[in-house]
């Protein structure tokens, strides 16, 4: 039983059924439609104005590979220039191979690449060191929460170094739906009210693939024969996002529109909580001697004091755990929980 003809060109056989519309398209027509939709997302949202210097968060994975490829195709039309920025979190056995993929891409596409390492930026803290510091408390590991905070900061630093005016990341519609669900599951009404965790504040960070479903991102990479790195981060099985992902996948099997409708802009919802911009506590970068204030460093403060959960927990939860003061490269220090007097 052959595939039906493409409903766009009527010439070739269809190669996929699009998740949202159910339309059957051949590979070539699908890729053209995909690129047109990304262009529409950028133009309609005024995400990347002409003359923008765009830092592309490049991990070597499927989403950032597709993002960089599509933006490179659209760059002349948009009048933008691209810089690849890769983050080295210091995860042994994983990040080196991923960075090798990014370097191959940078060479193939002839795009400049800047690599920013956690170890250099955050006083010697690699993700492996953070994982050691947050382990052993009996709770599920929270190192991925730290990684999210530190990665954003590292991307901003990389963008600053290359003189970028905007940052783009490859988050797709499935990622956005997971983020909304995670914030909902954490009861983070403030973040949801500010935009559902979808970037409500006016930051120069945007996600041109936010309306593209994950299936289409993967198939675009397949039909365009794009080379990407497809191994899972060694810490990913412990990340909270995995629970949201599993739930969404099961929901999607029952109700295919679940992913796309959960990305409905929260401005379309009614929220009782009125929330202003996210409070940002500014701390000087420890040990750098630089007078600049950098947000998101509460996380480092907790790590350096051996109280990792203080930084990312809420209320008293962080105070229940105490650890020996953490140093980034010290594998022997194991945190031991102690009783905390009530007050």
């Amino acid at each position, binding site marked *: *039983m052959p*595939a*039906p003809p493409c409903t766009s060109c009527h010439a070739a*056989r*269809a*190669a*996929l*059924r699009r998740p949202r519309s159910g339309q*059957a398209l051949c*590979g070539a027509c699908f890729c053209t439609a995909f690129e047109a939709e990304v262009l529409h997302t950028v133009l309609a949202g005024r995400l990347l104005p002409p003359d923008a210097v765009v830092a592309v968060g490049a*991990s070597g*994975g*499927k*989403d*950032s*590979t*597709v993002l960089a490829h599509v933006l490179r195709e659209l760059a002349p039309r948009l009048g933008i220039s691209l810089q690849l920025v890769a983050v080295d979190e210091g995860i042994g056995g994983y990040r080196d191979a991923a960075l090798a993929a990014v370097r191959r891409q940078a060479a193939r596409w002839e795009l400049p690449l800047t690599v920013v390492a956690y170890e250099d930026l955050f006083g010697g803290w690699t993700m492996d060191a953070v994982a050691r510091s947050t382990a052993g408390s009996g709770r599920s590991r929270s190192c991925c929460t730290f990684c999210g905070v530190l990665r954003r900061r590292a991307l901003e630093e990389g963008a600053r170094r290359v003189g970028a005016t905007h940052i783009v990341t*490859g988050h*797709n519609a499935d*990622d956005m739906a997971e983020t909304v669900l995670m914030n909902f599951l954490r009861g983070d009404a403030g973040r949801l009210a500010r935009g559902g965790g979808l970037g409500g504040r006016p930051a120069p960070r945007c996600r041109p693939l936010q309306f593209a479903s*994950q*299936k289409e*991102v*993967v*198939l675009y990479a*397949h039909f365009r024969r794009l080379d*990407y790195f*497809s*191994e*899972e*981060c060694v810490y*990913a099985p412990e990340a909270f996002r995995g629970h949201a*992902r599993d739930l969404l*996948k*099961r929901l*999607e*099997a029952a109700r295919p529109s679940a992913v796309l409708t959960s990305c409905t802009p929260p401005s379309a919802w009614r929220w009782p909580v009125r929330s202003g911009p996210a409070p940002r506590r500014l701390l000087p970068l420890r040990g750098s001697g630089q007078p600049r204030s950098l947000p998101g460093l509460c996380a480092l403060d907790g790590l350096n004091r051996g109280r990792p959960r203080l930084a990312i927990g809420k209320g008293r939860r962080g105070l229940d755990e105490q650890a020996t003061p953490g140093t980034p490269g010290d594998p022997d220090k194991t945190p031991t929980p102690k009783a905390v007097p009530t007050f």
Partner: protein
Amino acid sequence: MAAPLSVEVEFGGGAELLFDGIKKHQVTLPGQEEPWDIRNLLVWIKKNLLKERPELFIQGDSVRPGILVLINDADWELLGELDYQLQDQDSVLFISTLHGG
């Protein structure tokens, strides 16, 4: 009654890690009473090719949600999914989407 079939089974997007890291497998499916459709192919793959963690590849009688299936470079949703009847020299590609990007 199904005749023996020669098909190419390929794994990508990280799924190959469940199959000793080997992406392309040229397989010969033996002649049998029941027809060779994707449903029966999955049973055969689980029994003969899958090296570890079957729950990461198969769920029930289908693939785990998040694994795309392309038959001769076309989305299996266009071809009847599990009910597609395999032909000799067909190529079936399983791409995992379940990792960060």
